């Protein structure tokens, strides 16, 4: 079998230089901000785990694409976003939504098909909307919202309000032709937006080496003269640094920018399974290796070492979040179903 992970390929890709085992550098003055980021990452992780558990036990009827293991990216990027920005995402979007401050209860209600859900039961996990928090929408057609984000950024430029658009997508989306069109168009129209590619090395069951000649996707940004950086997607401090810089470019210069964050998902493509050996190179060995690079564990360790967090404090934080999420779930379960009339009532604008 062809060795898809040859040294040569990795070197050419730009991923090789990332040291996933490196300690996260934390500055003492950012204790509060880092703790808040950790809390948000834990919240997202526990929401995803809850969804995995409830899907496995049959309480959730539809598919859920979980992003456990990838939380640092959304949390790091969202730190520099504001409520009036325009954020778009794809099928694996829970972290992007929650990192903006959206309520887990409304996400749970949506996943359960309840009237109180973010999309009032019309969307489920794959079609989420919470514009008051800047989340303009997610849909599962791969790359489907990327050109929409370009348009929302064009609108922001015309509205001249300093807002930006963000398009989250994965390494699989890069293989869609519309991504190339979108990058070219965004650069040519000079619109304020951030492309965030979460490269978790897998598209559904297929490793990136089976789909692309190189394993880093930032080359598409370079080809379109868009400022880009490849970053360790499991290192919150690095993501924050990169997001701060690139969002500033978008906001102040009316230009697109591109982050490629290398990461790995703990669950398989969809639902609770780990998808071990479904695709080439997703072995339990790889999964276990990547779990040692867990963005939450790495941040916790850094905070412990810097004396900014104790295990007792962390346990308290985790207990509080767990209780809150369990409570949110119980409430969402009891929420009402949508009325039959909602099948037809919103097909056209009222």
């Amino acid at each position, binding site marked *: 079998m062809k060795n898809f992970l040859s040294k040569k390929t990795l070197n050419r890709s730009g991923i090789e230089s990332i040291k996933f085992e490196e300690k996260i550098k934390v500055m003492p003055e950012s204790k509060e901000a880092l703790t808040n980021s950790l809390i948000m990452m834990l919240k997202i992780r526990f929401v995803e785990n809850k969804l995995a558990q409830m899907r496995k036990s049959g309480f959730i009827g539809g598919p859920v694409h979980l992003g456990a293991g990838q939380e640092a990216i959304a949390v790091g990027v969202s730190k520099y976003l504001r409520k009036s920005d*325009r954020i*778009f995402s794809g099928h694996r979007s829970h972290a992007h939504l929650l990192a903006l401050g959206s309520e887990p209860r409304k996400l749970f209600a949506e996943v359960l098909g309840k009237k109180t859900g973010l*999309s*009032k*039961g*019309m*969307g489920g996990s794959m*079609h989420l*909307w919470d*514009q008051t928090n800047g989340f*303009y*929408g997610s*849909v599962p*057609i791969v790359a*489907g*919202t*990327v*050109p*929409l*984000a*370009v*348009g*929302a*950024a*064009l*609108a*922001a430029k*015309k*509205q001249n309000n300093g807002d930006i*658009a963000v398009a989250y997508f994965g390494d699989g989306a890069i293989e869609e*032709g*519309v991504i190339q*069109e*979108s990058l*070219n*168009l965004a650069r*040519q*129209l000079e619109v304020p937006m951030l492309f965030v590619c979460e490269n978790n090395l897998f598209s559904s069951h297929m490793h990136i080496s089976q789909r692309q000649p190189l394993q880093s996707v930032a080359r598409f940004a370079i080809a379109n003269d868009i400022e880009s950086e490849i970053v360790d997607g499991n290192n919150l401090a690095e993501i924050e640094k990169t997001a701060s810089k690139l969002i500033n470019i978008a906001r102040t210069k009316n230009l697109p920018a591109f982050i490629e964050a290398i990461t790995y998902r703990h669950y398989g493509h969809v639902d609770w399974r780990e998808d071990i050996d479904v695709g080439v190179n997703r072995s339990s060995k790889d999964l276990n290796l990547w779990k040692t690079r867990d963005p939450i564990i790495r941040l916790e360790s850094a905070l412990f070492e810097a004396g900014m967090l104790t295990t007792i404090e962390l346990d308290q934080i985790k207990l509080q979040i767990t209780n809150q999420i369990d409570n949110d779930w119980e409430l969402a379960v009891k929420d009402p179903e949508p009325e039959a009339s*909602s099948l037809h*009532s*919103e*097909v*056209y*604008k*009222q």
Partner: protein
Amino acid sequence: MTNYGVAIREGFAYLLKKYPEVFVIGQGLWSPWYVGNSMTDLDKEFGIERIIDTPVSESACTGAAVGAALAGMKPIMVHPRMDFMLYAMDAIVNEAAKWSSMMAGQSHAGVTIRSIINRGGEQGAQHSQALHSWFTHIPGLRVVMPYSVSDARDLLIASVLSGDPVIYIDDRWLYSNEEVLPPVVELDLKNQGPKIIKAGTSLTLVAAGYSTHMAVEASGILATQGIDVEVIDVRVLSPLFPKLILDSVAKTGRLVVVDGGWSPTGFAGEVIATVTESIDPKLLKSSPKRVTLPFAPAPAAASLEKIYYPTTVDVVKACTESLKQ
């Protein structure tokens, strides 16, 4: 007198003047080649920031128009030829059409997608298609095909102001039609539907866009033979309000539908099905008929084009046959 192409331009100018959130995006908008006389010098009058000529990227540009609509703008996406718009089907069918429903009416993709049927002149199979029927299959889209010169202007304005995704389809073969244009009326697209443009009693002739033009010509020829047909211009193909058509067929007992597309699973078939499932079959004096394209891609050779595209003579023939039964 104003011609159809200029009327479209007046619709654009009206919108651009009155609504700062309107902008136009598409290929060829800074060139005189692509869209006939329907957008002449709009870029000079309103600036290239609002009349955006684009890279050859139908998919991303249409998606961007959808995204701009979600962010509060009223964009008009222009596809100078419908054939090329097929690259944009995800943005139209998966995103724009479903957005309101998927997001439970909390957000709407109020984008107008203007698509031009530009055929004939030995352009062949990929510079010729009239695919309006496709879009009528999709809930969430409004599909508009103006025939009259005033509709060309006023339905464009109504489309952009509707807040819904609208496929507005005009036909280059109508551009030289002329009318005296009344002042602009801002119509509510929700309330717009078929219109009787020539009243009659012997047969109901239903059509849209350029097909209505042929239907009107045919009705003139038939009138000289003492045959009094009623011509209904559909105007808005989806959502279709069929009442006027049903009432007319109940009165005349005969139905001929003229459609610039192919027959199978097409708009003409939809009109006939709607009529036959809704009215008392005893009221029908003859089998409904449709005049459509032969079920083959458009040819390039002029000699073949002559037999490919239906003409007014074909419409007259279909009516005459219906009346014989």
